[in-house]
C-alpha cells in the first residue's frame, strides 16, 4: 500500500522579489506564445493535417462556439461535475468509515486487509461494464464508478494516518490519563489529518476520471459523452475544446481541495500561522472576559 507524500510544496512557485516574479511571468507568456505561433504557422503552411491536428485558432473557434454560440458545453459540464462530486462524497465517506473502523479495531483490520489488497490491484476502470450492467445508463453508474475509484486512496491514507500517529504524543496522552475517545479526537484525528487530506486530494482527481470513463462506456450526456460524439465525427477541434474544458473542471476541483487543505491543515503552512495565532489570541481573551463577567 502506498501513501501520498504529505510534503507541502508550492509547485513552481517560490519566493522572490516582484521584479523576479514579473520576469518569470513574462518568460511563461513568451514560451506559450511561441508554441502556439509555431503550431498555428505549421497548420497554415500545410505541415499539419487539419483532420489530425487542427490549428489553435480552430480550437479557439470551437471553444467559442461551445461556450458562447451554442452553449452546449454547460449542461454536459455540470452533469459530469455533479457525478464526480457525488461519487467523491460517497466513496470518501465509505473509505473514511471503513478506515476508522480498521484503525480502531485490530480484528476488523486483520480480516479486511486481504480484500483491500485485491481491491487495490484490480484496475477500477475494468469494472466499468459490470457497473453499467448494475446501475444502468444514467447518472448512477457514473457516480458509482467515481465512488469506487475514490474509495481506495481515502481508505489507505486514512488507515495509515491513524496507524502512524506520533508514538511520543500517544505516550504523553497516556501519561495524562486520556480516555480513548479524547485521544481519538484530540490527537489521532488532527495528527492524521494531513495524510487523510492527501488521500482525498488523490480521490478527487480519481472521481473525475471515473465519471468520464463511465460516460465513455455508455451515456447520453456529460462531458465524456460530448467528447466521444465530437471525436466520432472527426471534429478534432471541438474534441480538443472539450478536453480543455475537462482541464478546467479538474483545475476547479483541485483548487477547491487545495483551499480546503490550506484551511484545515493550517499548521503546516508557516505563512498562515501569524494570522491564525492572532485570531486564537482574540478568542482566548474573549473567553476569559466572558467568563470573568459572569
Amino acid at each position, binding site marked *: 500500500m502506498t501513501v501520498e507524500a504529505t510534503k507541502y510544496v508550492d509547485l513552481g512557485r517560490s519566493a522572490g522579489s516582484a521584479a523576479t516574479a514579473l520576469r518569470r511571468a513574462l518568460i511563461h507568456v513568451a514560451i506559450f506564445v511561441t508554441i502556439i505561433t509555431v503550431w498555428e504557422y505549421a497548420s497554415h503552411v500545410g505541415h499539419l493535417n487539419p483532420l489530425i491536428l487542427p490549428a489553435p485558432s480552430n480550437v479557439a473557434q470551437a471553444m467559442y462556439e461551445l461556450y458562447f454560440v451554442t452553449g452546449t458545453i454547460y449542461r454536459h459540464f455540470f452533469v459530469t461535475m455533479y457525478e464526480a462530486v457525488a461519487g467523491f462524497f460517497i466513496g470518501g465517506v465509505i473509505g473514511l468509515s471503513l478506515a476508522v473502523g480498521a484503525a480502531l479495531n485490530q480484528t476488523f483490520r486483520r480480516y479486511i486487509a486481504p480484500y483491500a489488497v485485491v481491491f487495490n490491484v484490480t484496475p477500477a476502470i475494468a469494472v466499468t461494464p459490470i457497473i453499467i450492467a448494475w446501475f444502468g445508463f444514467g447518472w448512477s453508474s457514473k457516480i458509482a464508478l467515481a465512488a469506487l475509484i475514490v474509495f481506495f486512496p481515502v481508505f489507505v491514507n486514512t488507515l495509515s494516518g491513524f496507524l502512524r500517529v506520533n508514538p511520543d504524543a500517544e*505516550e504523553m*496522552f497516556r501519561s495524562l*490519563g486520556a480516555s480513548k475517545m479524547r485521544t481519538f479526537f484530540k490527537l489521532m484525528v488532527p495528527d492524521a489529518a494531513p495524510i487523510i487530506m492527501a488521500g482525498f486530494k488523490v480521490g478527487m482527481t480519481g472521481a473525475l476520471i471515473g465519471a468520464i470513463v463511465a460516460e465513455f462506456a455508455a451515456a447520453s450526456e456529460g462531458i465524456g459523452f460530448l467528447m466521444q460524439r465530437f471525436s466520432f465525427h472527426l471534429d478534432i477541434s471541438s474534441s480538443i475544446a472539450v478536453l480543455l474544458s475537462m482541464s478546467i473542471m479538474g483545475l476547479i476541483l483541485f483548487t477547491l481541495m487545495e483551499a480546503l487543505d490550506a484551511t484545515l491543515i493550517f*499548521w503546516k503552512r508557516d505563512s498562515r500561522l501569524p494570522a491564525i495565532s*492572532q485570531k486564537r489570541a482574540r478568542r482566548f481573551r474573549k473567553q476569559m472576559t466572558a467568563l470573568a463577567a459572569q
Partner: protein
Amino acid sequence: MAAVLKSEARAAVDAAARPNVLEGERVTKRFSETVVALEDATFSVPEGSFVSLVGPSGCGKSTLLRMVAGLIPMTSGTLAVRGEEVKAPRTDVGMMFQKATLLDWRTAVENVLLPTELAGRTTDADRKRAIELLHLVGLEDFEFAFPRQLSGGMQQRVSLARLLQTGADILLLDEPFGALDEFTRERMNIELLRIVDGIGATVLFVTHNIAEAIFLADQVMVMTPRPGRLAKVVDVPFARPREIDLITTAEFNEIVAEVRGILGGH
C-alpha cells in the same frame, strides 16, 4: 504567580522529617528471558527532594521512570507512590519527555491547557493558570504562538508549563533538555531548579550527563548497564539556591569523580 507557587521552600524542610513519596523494592523489568532492563532496584525518594538518575544507555533509567509513571508494568518487585501500588498513570505524577511533543495545531497556551481538557472541563481559573505558567517558564509574549513558530528551547518551556498545569507534584523528567544545545540546557537547568523549588515538587530527573545530574540533585542514583542496576545512591550536600559557579569548585568535582568511579567500574 503567587497562585502557582507554594509557600514552603525546599531548603527550609529538614530532610529527615520528610516522608517518602516514592518507594521501590527489588523493582525488576525484563523485556524477555535474556533482556533485563532493570534488576532488583531498591530505593526511596523523600517528599520534595530532587533525585537524578544517571548512567549510560541501557542502564534502565528511562524504564524505571516509565514504571513509576504507570506507563509500563513491572516484571517483579513493588513500587509505591504515597503508599499506593502503581498500576496506572496517576494525577499526582507528571512526566516530561526529551521531545517537547507539542501538538502543532494548538497555540502554546492551548498546549498547556491540554491536561485540563483531557481531565474534563476547562474553567477560567485553568486558563489564567496556564497563562501564569507560561510566564513562569519565561514565555511572556509567546502565549499564542504555534509550536512551529518557537525554537527548540521555547518548545521545551511550553512542555514544562504543560507538566506544571497537570498539578502533579511528583515530576518525572526524562532527559528533558537532552536535545538542546549546551548553553540553552544550562540556562534551562537553572530555571528548572528555581521553578521546582518554588512549588516544592519532588523530581526524578533522568540524564546521562554526570555534572548536570549532580548540579541539580539532592541525591544521585548512579545506574550501570547490562543488566540495568542501581549501583549506588550518592548524596549531594550543596545548599540551594545553587549558582552555575558551583561546578568549578573542588567539592563538586570530588562528587563528579566519585560518580565517574562507580560508572567506570562497569
